[in-house]
């Protein structure tokens, strides 16, 4: 039986999604609802198996693309090996532009301001700026890809555990004669319900999780376009 590692760090975007199952559990913790949830489990477990990809951990419909290609968003001078961190203004601006909390319109204004003050080497410095933005977003994206696979691994582990728990529960219920046995069975049922809820909520969140690399690619493209527009 694969045990879930409780200390495994969930991706930031999933943390908030875990807030909901708590209250749902409280609401469904009556025996009737618990029974219903256990019945639902029969439908959920095969789905979990279906979600486990045959050839790897990638759970998304979108194909897994390891890294972005600069040429897909940039037709300016090459950026390979550019030491963008050596330009202090570029190094300061890159993390601001790359951060998703900076609205894209605001990023556009900052790029414009940078271009105005860039001096004689404007085009070269704007190219450096793109090199930095591309580097940062690509790096962040790579970390997110790893996070998605960890998420997927966790789900596969959880589905194994749910399967084992449901078999154990059936045995416990069948064998329960004393009150102590019945309490034990009820506890096991509660645990199963918990795990099912968590699994279910996480399965529903997969679509949103899979969108994050796409959102980053869109951001990189939008920034590339805004930077390129400032070049002569």
């Amino acid at each position, binding site marked *: 039986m694969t045990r879930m590692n409780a200390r495994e760090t969930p991706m930031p975007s999933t943390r908030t999604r875990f807030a909901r199952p708590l209250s749902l559990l409280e609401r469904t913790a009556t025996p009737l609802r618990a029974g219903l949830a256990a019945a639902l489990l029969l439908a959920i477990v095969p789905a979990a198996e279906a979600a486990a990809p045959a050839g790897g951990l990638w759970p998304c419909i979108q194909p897994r693309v390891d890294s972005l*290609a600069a*040429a*897909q*968003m*940039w*037709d300016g001078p090459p950026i390979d090996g550019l030491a963008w961190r050596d330009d202090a203004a570029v190094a300061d601006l890159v993390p601001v532009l790359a951060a998703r909390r900076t609205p894209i319109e605001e990023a556009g204004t900052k790029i414009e301001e940078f271009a105005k003050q860039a001096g004689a080497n404007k085009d070269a410095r704007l190219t450096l700026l793109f090199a930095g933005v591309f580097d940062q977003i690509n790096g962040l994206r790579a970390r997110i890809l790893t996070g998605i696979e960890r998420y997927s691994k966790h789900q596969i582990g959880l589905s194994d555990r749910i399967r084992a728990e449901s078999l154990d529960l059936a045995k416990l219920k069948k064998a329960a004669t004393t009150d102590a046995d019945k309490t034990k069975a009820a506890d096991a049922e509660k645990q199963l319900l918990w795990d099912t809820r968590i699994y279910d909520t996480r399965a529903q969140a997969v679509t949103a999780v899979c969108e994050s690399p796409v959102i980053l690619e*869109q951001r990189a493209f939008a920034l590339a*376009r805004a930077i390129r527009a400032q070049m002569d």
Partner: protein
Amino acid sequence: MTRRILLSASLAAAAGLMVMGETLPAQAQMRAFVTNERDHTMSVVDMDALKVLETIKTGRRPRGVTASPDGKLIYVAASDDNRVEVYDSKTFKMLKTLRSGPDPELFVLAPSGNPLYIANEDDNMVTAVNVENNELVAEIPVGVEPEGMGVSPDGKYLVNTSETTNMAHVIDTTTNEVIENILVDSRPRVAQFNHDGTQLWVSAEVGGTVAVIDPKDKWKIVKKISFEIPGVNKDAIQPVGIRITKDGSKAFVALGPANRVAIVDTKTLAVEKYLLVGQRVWQLAFTPDEKLLLSTNGNSNDVSIIDVASEKVTKSVAVGRSPWGVVVVP
């Protein structure tokens, strides 16, 4: 009492004038209609100001879009509602719906403006519908997952591509029978004749090529054009939309996630230039004067405006989510 009636009548008239005043500029301008697949809407772009004039709510998952020859009607394939919607290109109101068969994706109007030939991805059929009375003219069985639709300028031949069979099926429109099957590369998407009917271009999305076919020489493939962009992975080069200038000199090919439009010399069939547009460039449309070419960019949610003469991208216009098809009317 009488005065009150008069007053309200004049108020109503004034309101009517205001409404007219609002729609009048739209009538005077060239407009582009862009279907937004994920928003279930259609953006109307004012082609003088290059701004979105209005966003029309359509049926679910609008994809293919075309205009009647006079530019008065806009046809939209609402894929998830299994119907074709007909809009007035000036008032932007839906006038009627047409039968379409299941899951309509792309369609083409006969050069005369009737019938409308629709590809039904789910049931391996091409449906021909009379746009006047919504009657079913024909149902033509084709290959698996029919997709792209092209019609010869004289209306004699209809070409449908099937995604899974990797073929372009040539249909004689007088008998509605398939007369030729042309094997092209993987997942053919769009079929486009040039204006004198001497070339048929078929894009293969997964194959990454465009087959140029000679309709006069037993529908033989003259050349398969491939595309190379330094730094861009071959897998990302996915040709979809094709448009050929009226004088037949240049073809424009949308290359999907390569985010570029290729410009091809139609005589030498050599690629002359690649223009960086937006993300996942899908379909293309000329303005009626062919001064501008528009591309729908499905992932950057915008339309790129290309100046045809200078071969430069001049602007990006933000539209709805996942813009798919585009048509421009005078």
